[in-house]
């Protein structure tokens, strides 16, 4: 039963990513050229709603539909891992024009070459796992 719910959430998210054009390489390029408000509007409006919702959840100690306390694990304090990791991610995001969500969206939309990006991103994750202890965190 819960599996159906996860599937529906995924389908909804996939449709939104495709129809918002956030999965379009062109929109990402345009965003980094600062030539359109579109992507900033998407992220910005999601954040306004997201910040308000999470504040409400925290203030009123909202429970999940299953009665559990909603917890959002805080990210560990660090600078280097977020900055270095972030810059590397950004380089890839701009080059491939897709981040992990859109990679799956585009696979479903039928763009075969995105599978190359997907396999490379899984491989990149694997190499990170191998090198993890040698990297500054």
């Amino acid at each position: 039963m819960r599996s159906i719910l996860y599937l529906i959430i995924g389908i909804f998210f996939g449709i939104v990513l495709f129809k918002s054009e956030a999965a379009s390489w062109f929109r990402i390029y345009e965003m980094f050229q600062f030539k359109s408000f579109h992507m900033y509007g998407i992220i910005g409006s999601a954040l306004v709603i997201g910040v308000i919702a999470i504040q409400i959840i925290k203030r009123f100690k909202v429970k999940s539909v299953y009665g559990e306390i909603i917890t959002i694990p805080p990210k560990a304090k660090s600078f280097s891992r977020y900055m270095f990791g972030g810059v590397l991610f950004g380089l890839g995001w701009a080059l491939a024009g897709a981040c992990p969500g859109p990679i799956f969206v585009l696979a479903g939309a039928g763009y075969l070459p995105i599978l190359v990006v997907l396999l490379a991103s899984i491989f990149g994750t694997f190499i990170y796992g191998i090198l993890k202890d040698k990297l500054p965190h």
Partner: protein
Amino acid sequence: MNAIFQPWPWYVSGPLIALVMIVLLLIGKNFGMSSNLRTMCTLCGADKAADFFKFDWKAQRWNLIVVVGVIIGGFIGANLLSETTAVAINPDVITDLNQKGFTSAGEAYLPELLYSTTVFSDIKNLSLLILGGFLVGFGARYAGGCTSGHAISGLSNLQLPSLIAVIGFFIGGIFMIHVIFPFLF
């Protein structure tokens, strides 16, 4: 009704993405796409190569189901909910991209140069896709999240680490487009 078949404006799309995050929270889950790449590594046997992949992947099964949904959603969005998939980007950007050899700018969803099947016999652009994907996977795990985990979820929770990561995303992206692209295209 026709509006559904047109590209969705940012003020519809953004709140709907927030809704996905909120619904996941309300069913006790945290929004994040890139962690699935780690789960996929473990499923491929990476736990034998590094401790990082030794974790209870079954606890992440729900997120893999979300991924299956996202793939189906991509199919539905492209094939059933779109009259045209051309992305109407800024005309200045179209001119700029045409000069760089991206002839499909303004007429397609993705650039033909990188995402048509001809890329499979184009060593340079195929290498760029591999490099881009590699950096996305490596960088997302190094930073502990991607656009969904940091830019949407983490920033919504007013987390400083996520702000640092998102600033990093933009430094990397701006550097790629403004400094590296002129050498590539």
